[in-house]
């Protein structure tokens, strides 16, 4: 095995770890609505979401194509640059998680890769049209669209069935949530898993294993689908334990409207190849379903967090990605840099995790 092969394996492994953490982190967004309205039991909701996340990864490759072809010039970069971008994204996610800052894994991933490509190959390596047109503008439009679709959906629900007896209506919308929650999980799987597929495809192109413009190989699709599904399933147990404390209160019609709006926007965007922050879109749908009932029911602080994440994530992850690329190059052109940084990242992650748990225990007991 050559050093280039070793670097490629490290990139693929790191990308799959990123995918796993994405699923782990986002389980709450996908299942919280179904659980809070009692449409599904927590165990069922988590298992169902994990399966549909897996299935969702197979229904489209448009987002993967955008990440692989429209963000950075694949022929101008190397697997080491892709690795530095991933480290930028992971480091930013870790830092924002530790300090409780708003963030978006998807934007961090794209920001990290853009920053690393810029540092390694100069401004020509960054496809500005793609970054602005395929990532930044949809990042602003999609949550707002989910908000308005959520408002429209809940208004339709209340207008059409508002005068019916509440019991059957609630039961009906709970059944509806089985469908809308499933679609949301499917949508999450397709958009988020494809980002990982795109990153791995980018590394394969840079390594010379894959022709530019080709679809990701089947093993990439299956492994990305498996990683996000396992992440979703693992993250679910944390949700089950903390349930009832942090979940938004809403009725079944609102849950159905919020999930339907989120799923519609994510699936439509995925079809046109827009890599979105699924968290932001789902939050937009939830806020819309809340605002359609009562404006004061909306947690406007969440909207502030989304704006904060928009402003912070892309540039910050880009700077860290560029710095990671610099560090990798300082350690030479071989596998030493990626290996050393992987070990450092694992240690930093473990340290931050332990510190966070210790802090959490202090708060809980103090």
């Amino acid at each position: 095995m050559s050093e280039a092969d070793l670097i490629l394996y490290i990139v693929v492994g790191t990308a799959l770890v990123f995918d796993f953490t994405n699923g782990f982190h986002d389980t709450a967004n996908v299942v919280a609505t179904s659980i809070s309205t009692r449409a599904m039991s927590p165990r069922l909701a988590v298992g169902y979401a994990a399966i549909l996340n897996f299935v969702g990864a197979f229904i489209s490759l448009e987002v993967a194509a955008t990440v692989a072809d429209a963000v950075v010039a694949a022929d101008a970069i190397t697997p080491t640059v892709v690795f530095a971008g991933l480290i930028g994204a992971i480091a930013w996610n870790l830092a924002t998680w530790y300090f409780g800052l708003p963030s978006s894994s998807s934007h961090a991933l794209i920001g990290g890769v853009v920053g690393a490509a810029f540092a390694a190959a100069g401004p020509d390596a960054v496809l500005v049209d793609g970054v602005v047109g395929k990532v930044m503008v949809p990042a602003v439009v999609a949550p707002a669209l989910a908000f308005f679709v959520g408002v429209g959906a809940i208004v339709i629900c209340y207008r059409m069935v508002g005068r019916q007896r509440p019991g059957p209506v609630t039961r009906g919308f709970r059944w509806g949530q089985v469908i809308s929650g499933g679609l949301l999980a499917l949508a999450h799987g397709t958009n988020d898993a494809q980002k990982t597929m795109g990153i791995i495809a980018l590394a394969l192109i840079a390594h010379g294993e894959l022709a530019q413009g080709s679809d990701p190989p089947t093993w990439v699709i299956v492994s990305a689908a498996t990683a996000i599904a396992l992440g979703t399933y693992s993250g679910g147990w944390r949700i089950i334990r903390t349930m009832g404390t942090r979940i938004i209160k809403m009725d079944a019609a609102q849950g159905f409207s919020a999930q339907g709006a989120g799923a519609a926007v994510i699936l439509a965007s995925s079809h046109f190849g827009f890599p979105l922050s699924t968290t932001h879109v789902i939050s937009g749908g939830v806020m819309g379903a809340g605002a359609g009932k009562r404006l004061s029911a909306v947690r406007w602080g969440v909207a502030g967090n989304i704006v904060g994440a928009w402003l912070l994530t892309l540039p910050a992850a880009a700077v860290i990605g560029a710095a990671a690329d610099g560090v990798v190059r300082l350690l030479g052109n071989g596998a030493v840099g990626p290996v050393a940084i992987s070990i450092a990242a694992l240690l930093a992650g473990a340290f931050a995790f332990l510190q966070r748990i210790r802090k959490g225990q202090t708060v809980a007991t103090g």
Partner: protein
Amino acid sequence: MSVALRELLLAGAVVDVGALLETVLAATVAGLGVTTTFSLAILGASGSVDARRNGQRLQSAAYAALAVLGVLATLAAIGFGLVVMVR
């Protein structure tokens, strides 16, 4: 030409406005359409039960038909959306 207009035109040149508008249209039609058909299904199911309790058999049957149509339309819309995506 004002700076704002120039920036708008520049953004328009970079963004695939057609794809973005299609996304907005598809998401709006899908989100609101499925909500409407499923709400019709609930209206039909609920109305059918109430009419049956009141002894209005014909009305109950009509509501039941509305419920079935609503469910079928919802499933058809979702199926159509997924087929379009997979293709």
